């Protein structure tokens, strides 16, 4: 019964995720598209939780759905790009065909890979008492330097954004 419930939920969230992703790329209105993307993130987070990666699931919602997409939506609304009629598809048929072909190639790769046997990377979560530790311990001990370098990269992006935004002031 347990596996039946698991399989049911896997296909449920998987299908919703794929359907939302398709809706995301086909909607003309940016706001609607953004919301479909949020829905996709949410389903992916559910799948992570089903894989017993609850931390990743929570962070998926927190960072992508809760922070990035909110800011994105904010920009779309401020620039008043919300109405579908305001934006036209800038890419021609060639671009769409290429995108479709790349997508199909990736799908084929996934099918090919699923024929192989994966090595199990981590065992089942042994310690349910502390769910963050297995993520944080390697991140802040073994891989501390790469982690810090990544945050410097983000800082560079922030500084760059501020410089670009301030540049207008100096010109006028």
């Amino acid at each position, binding site marked *: 019964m*347990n596996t039946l419930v698991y399989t049911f939920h896997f296909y449920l969230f998987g299908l919703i995720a794929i359907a939302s992703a398709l809706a995301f790329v086909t909607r003309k209105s940016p*706001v*609607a598209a953004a*919301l479909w993307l*949020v829905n996709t993130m949410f389903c992916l987070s559910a799948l992570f939780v089903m894989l017993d990666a*609850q*931390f990743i*699931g*929570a*962070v998926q*919602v*927190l960072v992508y*759905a*809760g*922070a990035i997409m*909110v*800011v994105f*939506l*904010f920009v779309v*609304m*401020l620039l008043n790009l*919300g109405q579908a009629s305001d934006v036209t598809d800038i890419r021609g048929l060639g671009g769409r065909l290429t995108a479709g072909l790349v997508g199909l190639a990736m799908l084929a790769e996934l099918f090919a890979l699923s024929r192989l046997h994966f090595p199990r990377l981590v065992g089942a979560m042994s310690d*349910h*008492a*502390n*769910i*963050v530790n297995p993520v944080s311990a390697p991140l802040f*001990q073994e891989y501390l330097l790469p982690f810090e370098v990544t945050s410097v990269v983000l800082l560079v992006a922030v500084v760059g954004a501020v410089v670009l935004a301030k540049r207008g002031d100096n010109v006028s």
Partner: protein
Amino acid sequence: MMLPLVVPAMLADQAVYHQYYNPLEPVAALPWLLFTILKMIIVFTVIMVGVAMLTLAERKISAWIQDRIGPNRTGYGGLLQPAADGLKNIMKEETYPDAAYMPLFILAPMMSFIPALITFAVIPFAAPLSTRWGLVEMSVADAPIGFLYILAISSLGVYGVVLAGWSSNNKYSLLGGVRSSAQMVSYEVAMGMAAVSVLLLSGNVSLPAIVHQQQVMGWNVFPLLIGFFIFCVASFAETNRLPFDLPEAESELIAGYHTEYSAMKFSMFFIAEYSNMVTASALMVTLFFGGWDIPGTQWDNVAPHTGLKFLLTLAFFFAKLLFFLFLYMWIRWTLPRFRYDQLMSLGWKIMLPLALAYIVITGGAVLVLDMLQVPRTVQWFGISPFWAALGVLNLVLAALVFVILDRGRIISPAYSRLSPVQVARLRARSAGRSLAASQGD
């Protein structure tokens, strides 16, 4: 001296917490399912009824503070007023603006309502209850990610508000929606950062584990006083309550993001706001005031988990919760609304740097205290030395922070105290500005 990356004393003390906090052996599959469904229904009902009663409480407390009587005609002392309001909202005609974007206009109240109601799911509201089928944890979902779940779901609440503002196709609604998204995103950061100090002390994100840490050590509000202050202010901003109710500032924006909504859809925004208040209060209780812990005794924390302990801890949890809900209403009639730029500068220029500095200070203090092997458990007079040391540090810090905040310069209200030098400087600056304006810049 090279610091060891893992402090042995800290691990030993986490073992102390574990002595109290073992994630419970789940009861067998079928009873677990039934208990979970039962808890869902009960918690949902209690929150919905509680929210209805809160609207009455809000009006009664407002009346009391303003020396009025308040609603007293429907039922005994006005007790049936929420029922009458609910009935009215269901029976009322719904209006749909012509130019609204219909799918999102209808979806927005739900997107505000659902996250508000499901955030309460992980909050432990009483001591676990021992039943014939095993120990039943008293939260709807005993998720090990606890606190992260609350942060994640409550960050989704902003969608309802923003989309309501945008889809109404009304400039006041849009301004309300945009204001609220900016406000909620800004204060969410400060809120999360303030809560990190709690996580540093408890070493876990699971809410039952945080409650157990406070049972072993004492409530977090004293050793993490500034963290609590930041968290409390940020949760007022997160729930869009006065003095941070900019998204629906009546005098500027009619009713903000829900201007175009009527009847039950309007009511759903209202219910969402009140259940957000309930969750934020419950979170403050859980993170800083010991959750369901009864102060001054260890009797409630240890087995056997009887029905009496369950009821008493539940009562204590509710008493603390009601205090914070009262605080929300009290502050509503005490502090005037911030200006929008003040709100933003408070969030980004004060709350966030303060929270970031506080993480470093708390982290350092915890590390030093652990290396000095200051015991975390209760030692003398029912006080843990670790708790007391961190608390004294926080009292000093709090005095500093409040003195700096109260100089009336960083957030200056209309009546701020200015020294003659400052007044002269301000006059000179504004004179220069008007001169520049008259010359056409």
